[in-house]
């Protein structure tokens, strides 16, 4: 028998998705005394069991290659020791890519989403990022500006805890910072080499606690942030936002709940969320007064597009036709180099916080006659990383042979590799979007997405600039470029779309309902009790990773929603 389970009393607020955006909304609303129900498509997270933070490779028989040796055959989706955060391919949940496009879609199915694992680079967007059309005639201005966003960034930074220093750079606006962390050897040398080229290298802005904040312990510098942090010293929405909210008694959590459709009444307001309980594959409905969709840019678009009704034949709140459009990802390009000066360097613990201690903010904003608009930032890699499966395949294939000689060569070169990774802005274009693939449903019967994606000449030229810059820096260090550091995604000179995992733009905000889905508060123009709180509302995708702005914007959205509630949903 097909029976739909419905709740009786409508929930005040249902939040769909528990990542950076959903976590923030949950935190802000429960702090304000509002009851929230959270739907997460994956299971609950138990950091103490699920995070393999301090495990050494030899503590498992397969050393991290996977129980069935997956990493040796290109079948490991994500490192064995990495925090459980999601997949490139989810069994039974396909998506398609148009024949003229390349796109890879990373999806999370776990409490906290990608924040359990993400790089935690935390950069404010600049004034010109919010007013990009006014700045250079490309893209679209946001309905908010930097001055309006700045206090929300303050709140986000103060709560999350971000390292950094005040630099006074327009391309890297200052924020509320915890103390920076000292640079590693390779970072100091890169800094000196880059200075010769007129390129600034400054302390990184990372969501790791160099001091204890809000009851979260200070970092213990094991460098394993990507594996998840048991002490929550590296930010995750699960540990820092959702678990504390659960303790308030105001949060109801429903896990393994895959949202299928938002159901509207005749007046065009959302009255319930239909979702699949994955454990039983039964449809459930939760009635609600308001819904905040925070399922990640493309899942949020998918949910709206799949919520069709007589009132909304093109998908919910999609009178503008903009749902799914303007899909962007960051550009990615990286070079590795061998630095002879680092050979046989005295050994030491170079872990620190996971990821870079210094970085390069964009430095050519004011340069005339560039080959491309906007810019990119550069992430620095190197040091004595923990050996893992695959760490020395490059050396084995390059030096060949065997025996003591090979061993000596590997010892000499350990820690002598640097990696420079560019992450740049993509200007939204009409060729990059997602839509419902009418030929396919997933294992829950939910229609799936089809992606279209194309870099424009702007991004291609930008990646060439990265190549030249990184080559110059490596050579200024006395080193030699050894090749693209991530050929699996960057062999064509710029990353495959989606692989940097910074999707944005698919449910855009704006003041004009004809050209945008959401208003300036990220509330749908056409549906007064529907909000979106992830990177879907973004009007651009600047060279500053999306998460901090997701949190700041979601915070603003949540407080506005709470104010509306107080006024009786004006």
């Amino acid at each position, binding site marked *: 028998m097909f029976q739909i389970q419905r709740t009786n009393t409508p929930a005040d607020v249902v939040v769909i998705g528990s990542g950076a955006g959903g976590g923030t909304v949950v935190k802000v609303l429960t702090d304000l005394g509002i009851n929230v129900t959270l739907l997460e498509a994956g299971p609950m997270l138990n950091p103490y069991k699920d995070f393999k933070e*301090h495990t050494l490779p030899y503590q498992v028989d397969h050393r991290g290659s996977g129980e069935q040796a997956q990493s040796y055959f290109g079948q490991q989706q994500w490192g064995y020791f990495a925090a459980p955060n999601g997949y490139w391919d989810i069994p039974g949940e396909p998506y398609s890519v148009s024949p003229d496009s390349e796109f890879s879609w990373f999806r999370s199915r776990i409490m906290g989403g990608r924040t359990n694992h993400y790089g935690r680079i935390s950069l404010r967007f600049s004034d010109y990022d919010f007013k990009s059309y006014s700045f250079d005639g490309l893209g679209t201005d946001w309905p908010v500006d930097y001055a309006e966003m700045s206090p929300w960034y303050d709140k986000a930074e103060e709560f999350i805890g971000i390292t950094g220093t005040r630099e006074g750079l327009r391309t890297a606006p200052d924020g509320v910072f915890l103390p920076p962390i*000292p640079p590693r050897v390779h970072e100091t*040398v890169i800094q000196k080499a880059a200075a010769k080229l007129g390129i600034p290298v400054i302390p990184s802005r990372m969501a790791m606690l160099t001091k204890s904040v809000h*009851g979260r312990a200070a970092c*213990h510098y094991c460098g394993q942030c990507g594996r998840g942090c048991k002490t929550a010293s590296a930010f995750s929405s699960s540990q820092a936002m959702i678990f504390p909210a659960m303790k308030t008694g105001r949060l109801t959590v429903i896990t393994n709940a895959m949202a299928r459709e938002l159901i509207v009444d005749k007046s065009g307001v959302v009255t319930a969320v239909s979702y699949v309980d994955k454990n039983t594959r039964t449809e459930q409905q939760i009635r609600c007064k308001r819904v905040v969709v925070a399922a990640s840019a493309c899942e949020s678009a998918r949910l709206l597009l799949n919520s069709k009704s007589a009132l909304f034949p093109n998908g919910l709140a999609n009178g503008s036709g903009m749902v799914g459009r303007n899909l962007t990802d960051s550009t990615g390009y990286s070079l590795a180099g061998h630095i002879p000066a680092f050979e046989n360097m005295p*050994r030491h613990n170079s872990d620190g916080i996971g990821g870079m201690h210094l970085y390069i903010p964009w430095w050519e904003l004011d340069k005339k006659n560039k080959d491309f608009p906007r810019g990119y930032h550069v992430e620095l890699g190197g040091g004595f990383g923990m*050996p893992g499966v695959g760490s020395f395949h490059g050396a*084995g294939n390059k030096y060949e042979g065997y025996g003591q000689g090979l*061993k000596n060569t590997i010892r000499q070169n350990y820690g002598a590799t640097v990696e420079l990774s560019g992450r740049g802005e993509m200007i939204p274009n009409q060729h990059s979007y997602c839509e419902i693939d009418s030929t396919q449903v997933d294992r829950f019967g939910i229609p799936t997405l089809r992606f279209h994606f194309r870099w424009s000449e702007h991004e291609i030229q930008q990646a060439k600039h990265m190549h030249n810059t990184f080559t110059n820096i490596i050579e200024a260090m*006395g080193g030699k470029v050894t090749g693209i550091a991530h050929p699996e995604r960057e062999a064509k000179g710029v990353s495959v779309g989606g692989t940097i995992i910074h999707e944005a733009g698919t449910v855009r905000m704006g003041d004009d309902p004809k050209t945008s889905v959401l208003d300036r508060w990220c509330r749908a123009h056409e549906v007064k009790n529907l909000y979106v709180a992830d990177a879907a509302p973004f009007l651009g995708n600047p060279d500053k990773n999306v998460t901090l702005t997701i949190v700041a914007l979601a915070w603003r959205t949540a407080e506005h929603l709470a104010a509306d509630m107080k006024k009786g949903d004006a």
Partner: protein
Amino acid sequence: MSDNPTRRDLLIAFTATGLLTPALAQHVHEAVTEAKSLDPGADYKPKGLTDHEYQTMRKLAELIVPGATDSGAAEFIDFLSSRNDKMAQIYTGGLAWMDQEAKHRYGSDWLSAKEANQTALLDLIAYRKNDSPEIRPGIRFFAWARNMVLDAYYTSPIGMKEIGFMGNQVLSSFSVPDEALQYALKRSPFANS
């Protein structure tokens, strides 16, 4: 360098925040610095390989990376061969190829051959420049074996200690030893600027 806090200090610090399990990371560093052997010795019963294949793999691993026996390289490869058919095929096939080749060249299987003959065959298959249709299967197999023995060795306590990995520890603060920084700076192009 920073001082490591004691386990007790950490427990007190973390208990105050209510956020950490007692499973602290201190043991990690101790385990590495002990550099204990992962060689299970004569009692080991191979799971995916035959006894002969396993003994051959032990010898091959030790020649590829001296110390690999203690790093558990043969057991690592045996384990994965028991978990993945493709992996089993690579190793049972590759080791059999080496035996056949040794029989043709030296009149015995590879493991029974004199060490000079054992290495003479490796000297052929350890380099792409020696590629020919006759020894191509050996070259391909050796590339697999070399990569996986390197994996096993450098992810073991012995290999980590030998290469000098000192991380994945619990520290109260992070700093870089000046000795290392000066070493790198003196050898850099801008040493005198």
